Each structure stands twice: as C-alpha cells, then as structure tokens.
C-alpha cells in the first residue's frame, strides 16, 4: 500500500446531508499542484446477492429506480445499515425476495464509483435456497422476481434490460465462480 498522498486536502465541509447520503466538498491541491475542489458522496456500504437455484440460474428482481424513473431488472441488494456484510446480505435478500439460503459465499469487494463515492460493495453468492423467508413491503418497489440462466442474462445485458454496473459486476463475479465450480 502506498503511503504518500498525491492529493492534499486543505479543508473539508459537509454541503448536504439526508438520512441516506452525505455530500462533502473538499478544497484540495491536485497531483499537479494546482488548487481545486472535490465533491465526494458518502453513503453506507452495500451488498449485492446472486441467489442461485440448483440449476445455477440466478434470481433477478424487477425494481423501480426513482432517480432513473424506470423499471429495471437487477440483482437483489442494497445499502447496509452499518451492519456486518453477511448479516446485511441475508436481511436484504429475505426482505426483497423472501429467499433464505443455506450456503453463503463471499465473491468479492468492489467500489461503486471510484471517482465520486466512498461506498464499498460486497457481492455474495447464496445457494441452497428456499422461499420460506418473510418478504417485506418496503419503500422500494419490486413487482417481479424470476430465475434466469446466464445465457438469458447475457442477452438481457446486451439488450439493455439489465443496465447497472453494480448488477453486472455481481453477475460477472457469480458467473465466474459457477463456471469454475463446474
């Protein structure tokens, strides 16, 4: 790990805050030594869960994005409430889909947007699943959930039916894991 700091932070202040996000603006010296500002979004770390059935099909949900004002197919997941990653993953999966799983595997850590967001995202694979959990009516909307083969998912990605980097990253990690297992 590097210990030098190409960017120098001169001042930092919170410019906006709500219960789910905090925006801070730092005044900085850039790597080339010029003055600048940097806006940073701080949100809770998140979890994404690839839940697979015994045919290795992946469960996707169709959900409404308020920012995008559109319905999209996504991998279940969401922001943790500062809880432990695996506990957050179990809760998110059960709340959004009613799925509980016997086996959990952590597939990897990524970020969400390196240039802007501090959020760290952890992807899990959930297998040995049943629909015996309790689904919750949350403020987020989910109108459908279904299993898809990786081939079907590839087609959905190429047609833009799955179009968010977080879901595609989680799908990639899960697909790699499942292929290596076979």
């Amino acid at each position, binding site marked *: *790990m*590097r210990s030098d*700091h*190409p*960017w120098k932070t001169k001042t930092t202040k919170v*410019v*906006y805050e*709500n219960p*789910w*996000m905090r*925006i801070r*603006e730092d005044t*900085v010296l*850039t*790597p*080339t030594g010029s003055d600048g*500002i*940097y*806006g*940073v*979004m701080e*949100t809770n770390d998140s979890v994404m869960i690839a839940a697979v059935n015994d045919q290795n099909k992946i469960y996707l949900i169709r959900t*409404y*994005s*308020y*920012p*995008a*004002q559109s319905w*999209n197919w*996504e991998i279940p997941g*969401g*922001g943790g409430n500062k809880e432990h990653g695996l506990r957050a993953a179990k809760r998110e999966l059960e709340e959004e889909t009613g799925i509980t799983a016997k086996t959990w595997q952590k597939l*990897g*850590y*990524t*970020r*969400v*947007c*390196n*240039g*802007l*967001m*501090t*959020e760290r995202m952890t992807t899990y694979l959930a297998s040995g699943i049943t629909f015996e959990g309790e689904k919750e*009516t*949350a*403020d987020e*909307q989910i109108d459908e959930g279904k299993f898809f083969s990786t081939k079907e998912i590839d087609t959905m*990605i*190429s047609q*833009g039916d799955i*179009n*968010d*980097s*977080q879901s*595609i*990253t989680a799908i*990639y*990690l899960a697909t*790699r894991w499942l292929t290596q297992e076979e």
Partner: protein
Amino acid sequence: MADWQTHGSKVVYENKWNRVREDDVTNPIGQRTVYGVFSAQHPIVYVVPVTQDGKFLLTKQFRYVLQQDTWEVVAGQTDGEDLMVAARRELLEETGHTSDDLRQIARLAVDTGVYDSYIDIILAKNCVKVTDELDKTDGIEQAKAFSAEEMRKMIHSGEIICPHSIAGFYIACDILAGDTYAL
C-alpha cells in the same frame, strides 16, 4: 408508472462536474420524505481499450475519494464535446494510445438508488501507442496492457475494484467473442 409522487425539487449542491438535488416526495408506501439525487453535469465516458494483439489497456491512478491506487479502464467526463471525440481524447490522455475503431457498446447506470446520469461504455479496438506522455492532471501514473486472463485474475483478486471497468470488460468480451479477436 410507479407510485412515487414528486411535490418539489431543489438543487442543494453543485460544482463544475456534479449536481445534487433534493426532491420532496411521497414514497410508494405513502410516507412524505426527501430523495437526494446525484447527477453528472456532463456525460461520462468509459473506454475499454483493446490493443492490436488483443490485450486490454488499464490505467493506474491514485483515486482521491478512495485514497488508494486503482487499476481501471479509461474514464472521464466530456467537456461538452461529442461522445466519440471525448473518448478519443481521454484514451490518448490516459494511455498514450489512439484507435481507429470505436463504438458504443453499453449505457449503464452508476447506482440506481442515488444517481440519475448514465455512463457510456465505448469499446476501442486496434489501439496503437503514439506517445509515452500521460496526462498527470487526474493522477494517472501508468498505462499497461493485460491479457483477458490477467484481467480475470485481477478482478478475482480484488485488484480491479471499479464496477464500470468490470461491467465494461464483461460486455466487451462478449462482443469480441463474436468478432475475429482471439483472446
């Protein structure tokens, strides 16, 4: 149409690159609350550069937000110029390469919960090195070519942590598999 109702909207923060607005909303279960939405001021491009011998170019840069070095594909915000012009400029600035074969392969959401702008993923094939000079403004330190297998290992080991790079690579591989590239 979903059951969100928007009663009002105001910009609560903006700088040259980003804007944050806060909407006054009623959510689908009937609660009056606020929704913060982040937007980019200009379109964002991510370029997945592939060299003539089928390797992927990555850049190493120190990311201020994460306070660490990262390996990523080429990324940048347009200066209001055409998408492909921006993609060519970023490719040259960050890797010292040019390409005569660019095409848009995806438009992706950054974070469907908080961000309403999309990023355009551009596949740049036949990349050729024209200079060793890299743009140091954003802290780009190095550009290096990796085979697809090396990329997979770097994703697996957590050396590549940028989801747009991972998603872009995934989609690019699918497209290149249908082309004449041998990866």
